């Protein structure tokens, strides 16, 4: 049962859902709770196939509310617990995620975005950005990694567990239906063999000793009688969040120094953005890209810098302005002309981005 999950680094050719299951194993997750919804189903399928071999657990619940709350319970019991969902399931998941925010519980949630609103399509979108970054009745006290390749899906799923357990905020890996279902190569590895320390989970409840005598009592509240009490706790959490932000915010940037236009995209759309910048540069157009890897917290100083030094920015997303809205807040006070290319619920190719840029730059 102590069998090492990935003996040595190996190149694999997998679907994104398989990648997530392997990454959760590599991160030494103990248990997955889940309820089926396309396009994330195979995360559960692969996990349930792999889990018994490594003494891991799985619980199928009756819906996403329950999947989220059982994940909360798993974490309270000191297990590295995660769940995965999409679309309307993500909507329901916001309730238990809010509780995890209030109790500072390191649950990990993988989202494979599908079209919205409502049932819409089971295929693809980037329309769960607002909900994943700022959902629930709270202040968006969560970390959201937006991946763009299978290698990143592996890397950031592992990282999500560490971020969650280090800072004790719920942490999301935000993929999409394309990433879920497509196959592409990546390298699987054992994180510890690469020198990545995996943070060990610890129980919140049921600790040894007598509370008040051997240890401080455990008290986890999501209910407050007094407004002032709540104010104090939320202010404290937001201060913690603010201190964490520069440690976890990640971004990728290239060719912006002399750029007439900077293209911004996240997730799978970034692949098209990067290809478009390569192709446009080859044709002599001065364009660069900026890509937020964490959508929450955003790399605010770097975003301000891009928006201050560029004449024009073009935000490209498979949603109607969900990333754009986050960027506008981050870039408040800067002067770049703000251009957008919104394609809610459909894929975006490099050729389409190039055509848009050529139209803008004449």
């Amino acid at each position, binding site marked *: 049962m102590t069998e090492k999950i990935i003996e040595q680094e190996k*190149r694999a*050719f997998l679907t994104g859902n398989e990648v997530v299951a392997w990454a959760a194993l590599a991160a030494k997750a103990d248990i997955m709770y889940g309820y089926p919804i*396309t*396009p994330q189903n195979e995360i559960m399928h692969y996990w349930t196939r792999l889990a018994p071999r490594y003494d891991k657990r799985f619980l199928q619940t009756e819906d996403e509310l329950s999947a989220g709350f059982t994940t909360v319970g798993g974490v309270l019991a000191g297990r590295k617990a995660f769940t995965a969902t999409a679309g309307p399931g993500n909507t329901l998941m916001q309730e238990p995620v809010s509780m995890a925010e209030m109790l500072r519980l390191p649950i990990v949630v993988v989202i494979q975005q599908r079209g919205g609103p409502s049932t819409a*399509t*089971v*295929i693809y979108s980037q329309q769960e950005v607002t909900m994943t970054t700022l959902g629930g009745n709270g202040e968006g006290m969560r970390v959201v990694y937006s991946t763009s390749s299978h290698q990143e899906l592996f890397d950031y799923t592992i990282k999500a567990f560490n971020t969650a357990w280090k800072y004790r905020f719920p942490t999301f890996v935000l993929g999409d*239906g*394309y*990433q879920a*279902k*497509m*196959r*592409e*190569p990546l390298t699987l590895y054992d994180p510890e063999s690469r020198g990545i320390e995996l943070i060990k989970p610890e129980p919140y409840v049921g600790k040894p000793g007598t509370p008040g005598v051997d240890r401080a009592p455990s008290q986890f509240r999501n209910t407050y009688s007094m407004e002032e009490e709540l104010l104090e706790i939320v202010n404290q959490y937001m201060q913690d969040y603010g201190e964490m932000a520069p440690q976890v915010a990640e971004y990728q940037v290239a060719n912006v120094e002399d750029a007439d236009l900077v293209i911004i995209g996240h997730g*799978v*759309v970034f*692949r*098209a953005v*990067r*290809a*478009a910048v*390569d*192709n446009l540069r080859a044709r002599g157009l001065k364009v660069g890209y900026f890509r937020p890897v964490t959508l929450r917290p955003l790399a605010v100083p770097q975003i301000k810098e891009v928006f201050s030094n560029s004449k024009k920015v073009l935000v490209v997303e498979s949603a109607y302005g969900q990333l754009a809205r986050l960027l506008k807040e981050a870039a408040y006070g800067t002067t770049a002309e703000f251009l957008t290319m919104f394609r809610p619920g459909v*894929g*975006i*190719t*490099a*050729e*389409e981005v190039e055509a848009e840029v050529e139209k803008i730059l004449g």
Partner: protein
Amino acid sequence: MGKITRIVLAGEGGQGVQSVAEIIAEAANKAGKQALYIPNFGVEQRGGVSVAYVQISDGNIGSPKFKTGDIVVALSERAVRRTGKYAGPDTTYVYDSSIKGIEGELPKYAGRFLPIPAIDIARHDFHPRVFNIIILGAVVGATGVIPLEQVKDAIEEKLGYKFEKQPELRELNFRAMERGMELVDAKNMRESVIFKEVAPAYEIF
């Protein structure tokens, strides 16, 4: 970015287009190339046209889906109607020559049309079930970017468990694939009896 090859495969459920796409992508990956395969999927559980998108490149691959294929393969009447939009002036459009009544449905702007009698060949010379392997051969031949050895490896990986039980299937599949490659081999195209029998449609553009 290196040169990129984009392939669309479409057919009825059960014709095996997803398996073909998976084998092609896996073979390209084995050959050390970047490869990306994505199936279409929707809410319908059956009855839809099955479409697969494959990209093979020496460099980074951009978005998983694309607008125009270098090679577009349609294996049924509905697949022909569905895939017209993926054809452009540089597209090789491959379809089964036994599909009836599609003259008006073929895309107007494909670079070259390749009708191939894969269904007939599978039925008469091999076995109906290797039809998709003939198609696989045709795609491998038409792209010319995936080495045969890795294609055979990928077939072995996918169908090896069947070959264990019936070793003669291995030879049957490999021969079917090679026959598929011959069908699209430019050298053979002119003399081929096959291409005399079907009206050459590749002058439409």
